[in-house]
């Protein structure tokens, strides 16, 4: 996001007003995510207007996650927002400024479009989703672009053999999720299973 005045009605966060979260420390997770995403860069070739130089996603990202995504330089005034208002504001700002559809935001965050609608209306958001929101906000915030359209283009743009920011974010946070619970057996385990044989000798 470009350093400009906040959109009317939008609640911007200061680094001195961390996103409420009672979850586990996010620093290690943040670090690992962006280690994975580092090296992905965005070029400006497709952008219509002048933008900043391209830089790595790791550079754009400012850990820790539990801190807000918007730099203090941009904060016009301190806010006293409730957790619901804060998360709702983040979600609405993400939608407006990323250029992503609600459906795409939902995909990135691993939830349905309706869940993002609910969050934008003030619905409760769990700590991990807050972390992901903050993470995503950091990435969007630092894209070298001046408007939502440019940001959207950068989010889906690929560079050489690297995945887009969208796909890299999706891959990274899903690979962090560890053991799959609902169907814990892989196709290989299922298809090669023998019901009650003792095994190969």
């Amino acid at each position, binding site marked *: 996001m470009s350093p400009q005045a906040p959109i009317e009605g939008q609640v911007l966060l200061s680094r001195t007003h961390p996103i409420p979260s009672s979850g586990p420390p996010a620093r290690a997770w943040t670090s690992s995510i962006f280690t994975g995403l580092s090296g992905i860069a965005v070029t400006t070739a497709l952008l219509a207007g002048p933008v900043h130089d391209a830089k790595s996603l790791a550079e754009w990202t400012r850990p820790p996650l539990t801190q807000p995504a918007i730099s203090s330089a941009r904060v016009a005034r301190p806010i006293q927002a409730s957790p619901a208002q804060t998360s709702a504001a983040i979600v609405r700002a993400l939608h407006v400024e990323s250029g992503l559809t609600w459906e795409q935001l939902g995909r990135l965050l691993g939830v349905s479009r309706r869940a993002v609608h*609910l969050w934008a209306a003030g619905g409760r958001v769990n700590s991990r989703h807050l972390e992901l929101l903050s993470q995503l906000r950091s990435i969007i915030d630092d894209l070298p672009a001046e408007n939502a359209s440019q940001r959207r283009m950068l989010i889906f743009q690929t560079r050489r053999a690297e995945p887009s920011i969208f796909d890299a974010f999706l891959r990274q946070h899903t690979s962090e999720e560890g053991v799959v619970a609902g169907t814990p057996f892989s196709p290989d385990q299922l298809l090669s299973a023998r019901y009650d044989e003792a095994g190969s000798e």
Partner: protein
Amino acid sequence: MHRGGMTRQDSNTDAKNSDEPAPLDNTHLQVIDSFRQGDVVTIHGLPVLGSDAVWSRRTPHGAVLLTQTCDAVRPEKLTVALAPIAQLLGSTASEARDGKLLRYIHVPTASSDAFADLSVIATIDKALFAALPRIAGIDQTDDDAVRKFGRAVGRRFGRFPFPDEVVPWLRPLEVVMQSKHDKNSPEGAAMRDVVELRVEAIGGWQNPPYALTLCVIVKPGVIPTFPDDEPPTCPDDLTTWLRSNTGNLRQTSGAIANRLATERSFSPSSASVYWLWLALAEAWAARCTPDVRKHSSEDATKIMAAVTGIDADLIDEGGFDLYRYRRSEQLDIDHLSPPLPL
């Protein structure tokens, strides 16, 4: 099952000393094709290995075949698994028939009050099974009944063990669901539109504390659909009614369901119905707060530390993708029984 229902049989040392099941002869092979899961046989008892002897669980009403049909009919598989038949009465039978008591599975063709009691399962030689008087326990022409029986067997042993500390978080929702589901109330009606409740632990179940999402999966067509990606505008009066000035939900699930029922009767595809459904899912998630007064101080501390929060996602059946299915667990609330103390 307590030992009052069992009789002592031969001790281990008295039993025939064989490491192998009895082989099948031609007589057995002639009937093996007719074996079906759910078949009921007349047998005096089923063996239970005790610490110093083999006990017999008496089976005055017979025993039911649990082994899947595809294995029961294969001649190279020499054993089958049986469970005793129990006769249940009254509300216990009713709950068991409704699938609310996992220990029991209805065996309808045998008798209206006959249930497989999965608290005891014994393995017997297929040769012995073939020689027992046998009737069908399940109507084999009824595919639904056949599948229902098989899935009930699997359910008893395949449930996901939610972490002990998480169960008290889910218990209040269980109480609401059980108390309202079958009743003619607006919340009960809304619950009957729910196909499944699943719980996601984002980040997995390996490392607490858990950030949970309650996935409320409803029948297709229940949530209004709108022509584009944007959410419909929530009427101002509804917004004010649903949320406080700080944005927090201020209505209970019951109150939301009441208003939802009213709005649905006027316009089932309205924006109000959409937002009320979302709020109802959130209200159900909000129910998931443990009553720590029921626990010791030490346990309460563990319980409260185990979950950082629960949010809600409302999805229709067709929109719940495999990715999320694989990362979530069915909230099979009938057996959320915590082995406390933690």
